[in-house]
């Protein structure tokens, strides 16, 4: 900062000018947001985003040719301007990190400034364009003349530029839809988060929905409140055959355990039936050596659950099992008459015709008896460019790890504090 030697806006610019520029941009952005609101611009989709992106790149190149010999180029491609832009973005992201990003019905200062939907607000748009502009200038300055020793720098900076640029422009073309698949039915339509149905260039038939569950757990609940008793940890222990465990003050012994069972008379039997639920016969021994024995079951959509009262205050119960893995055996049909057999699983998606299909959910009330599978279909034509940017940044990071600090050691060691 050269405050003492030069007045504001006098060349060369430094931190003061950089922060004022950013502040001005934010103020104009918020003023526009407050008065015009974001109703005036929607998300831009193909081909308009491509055109806008092309124009933007052209503008950056044009500005570079116009100002490359002037001192202002040094400022725009320099560190003070970068730090100003990063700080401006940080302010917005901090707001985003504190205020929940959800729709709010009642009008107020939060909604009219767009604090609850910052990523679609005008100041966020402005700051991103500004940041991309500065970053673009920085990259150009390092790119010309071409020097091999700058490759790490170019990877990280250009990678970031490509990522932000393509993620931003591509967001309008990103489609995330859901499909409800029912066993043995063909589905060709998907719905968005507003419930609008769209026809897809593919159809999916669910042949089989498979789900495995973990064993249910033992837990102690308070009889009056029904809430989980958590005096000691762990407060839940997974049931296994012949398990003997210590849960809080009680010793619990599992005498019998069935993954699927039904109650007949005064006990449960292992059966395979639609809706058959896990059950266990447990012995609960208190610290005064009182023993209570009985059956517990978590029940299912068509069978009641059963807990065992151990004293006036507490009962032992079986929790509803959590899913271990679930997958859908599907046939995927495309307009060219092709049919593909696939298995969709969480973390294992499948791509067809530019659509990526993800296993998302199922009918949770039915548990292992669900015949419905919910999948997400995503189309993200810009993904490849985002990935190129991300991989460049990764290479830049590895370079940074290997290279370590580049800060001029000489100057540091001769430096003065201040």
């Amino acid at each position, binding site marked *: 900062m050269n405050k003492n030697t030069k007045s504001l806006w006098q060349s060369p610019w430094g931190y003061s000018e950089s922060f004022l520029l950013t502040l001005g941009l934010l103020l104009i952005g918020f003023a526009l947001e407050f008065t015009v609101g974001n109703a005036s611009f929607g998300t831009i989709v193909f081909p308009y985003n491509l055109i806008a992106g092309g124009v933007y790149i052209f503008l950056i190149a044009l500005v570079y040719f116009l100002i490359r010999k002037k001192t202002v180029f040094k400022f725009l491609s*320099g560190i003070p301007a970068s730090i100003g832009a990063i700080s401006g973005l940080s302010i917005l992201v901090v707001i985003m990190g*504190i205020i929940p990003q959800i729709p709010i019905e009642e009008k107020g200062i939060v909604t009219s400034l767009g604090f609850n939907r910052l990523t679609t607000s005008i100041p966020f748009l402005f700051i991103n364009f500004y940041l991309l502009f500065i970053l673009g200038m920085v990259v150009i300055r390092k790119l010309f003349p071409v020097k091999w020793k700058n490759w790490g720098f170019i990877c990280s900076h250009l990678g970031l530029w490509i990522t932000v640029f393509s993620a931003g422009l591509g967001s309008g073309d990103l489609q995330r839809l859901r499909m409800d698949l029912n066993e043995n039915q063909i589905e060709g339509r998907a719905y968005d988060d507003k419930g609008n149905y769209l026809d897809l260039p593919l159809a999916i038939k669910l042949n089989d929905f498979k789900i495995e569950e973990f064993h249910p757990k033992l837990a102690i609940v308070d009889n009056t409140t029904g809430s989980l008793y958590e005096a000691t940890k762990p407060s839940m222990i*997974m049931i296994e055959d012949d398990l003997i465990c210590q849960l809080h003050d009680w010793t619990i012994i599992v005498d019998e355990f069935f993954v699927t069972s039904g109650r007949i008379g005064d006990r449960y039997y292992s059966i395979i039936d639609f809706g058959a639920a896990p059950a266990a016969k447990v012995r609960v021994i208190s610290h005064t050596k009182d023993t209570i024995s009985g059956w517990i079951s978590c029940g299912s959509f068509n069978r009641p659950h059963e807990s065992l009262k151990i004293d006036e205050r507490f009962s032992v119960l079986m929790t509803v099992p959590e899913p271990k893995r679930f997958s859908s055996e599907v046939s995927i049909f495309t307009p060219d008459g092709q049919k593909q057999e696939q298995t969709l699983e969480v973390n294992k998606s499948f791509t067809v015709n530019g659509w990526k299909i993800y296993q998302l959910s199922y009918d949770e009330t039915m548990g292992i008896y669900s015949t419905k599978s919910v999948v997400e279909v995503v189309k993200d034509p810009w993904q490849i460019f985002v990935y190129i940017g991300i991989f460049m940044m*990764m290479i830049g*990071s590895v370079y940074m790890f290997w290279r370590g600090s*580049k800060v001029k050691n000489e100057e540091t*060691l*001769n430096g003065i504090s201040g």
Partner: protein
Amino acid sequence: MIWNHFLLAAGISASTWLLAAFIPKRELVRNGLVLTGIASIAIFIGFLWISLGRPPLRTLGETRLWYAFFLPIIGFLTYWRWRYNWILYYSLALSLLFLFINYMHPENFSKTLMPALQSPWFVPHVVVYIFAYAFLAASSLVAIRGLYQEYKGQLQPKIMLMADNLVYLGFSFLTLGLLFGALWAKEAWGHYWTWDPKETWAFITWLGYLVYIHRRHQMPSKFKSSLWILALAFVILLICWFGVNYLPSAQYSVHTYSQQP
């Protein structure tokens, strides 16, 4: 069966590493011992993989095994490149801690891990972050020391070199962790960035250290402002690490690891 092999592998790792800690002077022997310990975990993971007939990446206990495997490897690489002894011992200690947790909780080998976390990305994402946090925490200790020296009026420029290198290493891991998370999210949830509160704060943390790096690069001879930026960046990192859960925005986060995903 599996359990006995685990005890054997963990026992070899623990004893070789403890031995390594006692002979830090004989570098060759020490490094050999460290690598033997790593190999012992690797062999056990391979054995587990074959006997389970699937990648052992499905339960918390299995995930901890991978931590215990990757931590010393990255720690050793970092030591090899930068000769920071402390990061080697730090990673060995953390690795032993994870093995010890598995030893204390045998049932963890069959404990639930929700399907979304059963991904090959889970382990690199977390391991890389553990290293980022270690380096950045160390850099902030240096910053506090620097600010204290500054307050006493006897700041040594050498301390800045230390802070810089720690931040550079930490920042490279932080960036990798962030990007691994983004790639994983795309594979698992359909989008690489959703501005989840934890993501948002991780991004703010990243920006904080980004400011520090640029400021240092431009003004290598001015220390005080940089030291304050470094101290502030660590406060943000702590918010990201622990504080997020207490913020009003956190109730919609997928990173709170509650029962319901």
